[in-house]
């Protein structure tokens, strides 16, 4: 785990640096709020509805679900890729079967129109 330590330092500095600027600069920044400034931007008219009043389209959600499915597959791929030079033919066949199932699912999703936006 020791090799991860530098990352921790790195992340800490990476987070502290912007926060520090935000805090320090707050001392010199002007602050003159007014109602128009604090309203959400709506191209110059008063917003009749909040963005949170609407649901967003199910299509975005669909993409997210598909992503989760396929992304899990990629996670399986990486360890396989690392030891592939030891598995060779066995690994190839094994992964071919795995990918075949994956592609089947992919084709199914495509045919069902889940990948078409409009």
């Amino acid at each position: 785990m020791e090799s991860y330590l530098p990352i921790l330092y790195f992340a800490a500095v990476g987070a502290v640096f912007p926060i520090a600027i935000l805090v320090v600069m707050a001392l010199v920044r002007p602050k003159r709020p007014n109602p128009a400034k604090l309203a959400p931007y709506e191209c110059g008219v008063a917003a009749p509805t909040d963005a949170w009043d609407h649901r967003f389209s199910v299509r975005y959600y669909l993409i997210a679900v598909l992503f989760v499915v396929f992304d899990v597959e990629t996670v399986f791929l990486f360890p396989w890729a690392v030891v592939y030079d030891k598995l060779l033919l066995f690994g190839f066949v094994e992964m071919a079967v795995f990918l075949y199932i994956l592609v089947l699912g992919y084709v199914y999703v495509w045919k069902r129109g889940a990948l078409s936006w409009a």
Partner: protein
Amino acid sequence: MTLTLSEPLFNALLAVVKILFVWAMTLAALLPNLIWAERRVSGLIQDRPGPNRVGPLGLFQAVADVLKLMMKEDVVPLYVDKVLFTLAPLITLTPALVTFAVIPFGSSIPITWNGAVRDVPLVIADVNVGILYIFALTSLAVYGIVLAGWSSNDKYSLLGGVRASAQIISYELAMGFSAAGVFIAAGSLRLPAVVEWQHAHLWNVVPQFLGFVVFAVAIFAETNRIPFDLSEAEAELVAGYHTEYSSFRFAMFFMGEYANLIAASAVVTTLYFGGWSLPGVAFTGLWGGLASIAVFAVKTAAFIFLFLWVRWTLPRFRYDQLMELGWKVFLPLSFFHLIAVAAFVAASGR
């Protein structure tokens, strides 16, 4: 009197020095210069001078810009989700900066310690998950954008946020599949190992050209730049997810984008263009180590230039076209590429 240091302390010190070095490179040197370079390159492409007043050749323009942004009023609209609104730019910027931790930026430098000479590898953290770490961080950056879009409680921001999330996750798949080919070749997820393999054999771009193309396009999409800047798309969504952001909070997104750009260029260089290596050149000793850093920097800069060039040349995709390209073109291509590489390696026995 000789200074004696315990082993862990020495390692920690080494890490700090390396972090400082990388930070100096990225934050102090590259990032401002990149903002300047972007504007000068766009000026060059667009037949105009670009910024040339602040400092020699306008080099201090970026510094002036960031200073200006720091001094600006920080407007937080009334109806936003305050916690997430504050957190979002941090979630974008920090991972973008931390990505550099696993990228080897040079071969190694000999350092004498306790009488013994040891080669210090020029990478901040040589972790065995290497590329997974990078994928994890780039996925984290999506959260920043999505949360910014949602917490702003503004319709353009919201649309920008959902666009970004769908776009980035779609291209991440193609990116993952195409990168797997590189690790089959190298037999390790460690980025130094990938570079060393390329140093010993061949730059990956040659045998895995298709993978390189898919990976490069996907990483363009990940960095949210034209032709993939749909989450900002100023003509449609005003400023997309950062419509409501001002002052330094906006600057954080801004710097995050550029830090991502540098990181993306560094990753492509490492995976496909041999990182710090040059074919047939052995980088040994102190001067060799420094030269390898220079090689790496030049390669990365070339990629950064490519990024800038593309941005000022191409139009932007439409949302559905972008998704179809990702799911129906690049994903199958990356499948195909992976199988082809695996088959080739299995057939050749190595």
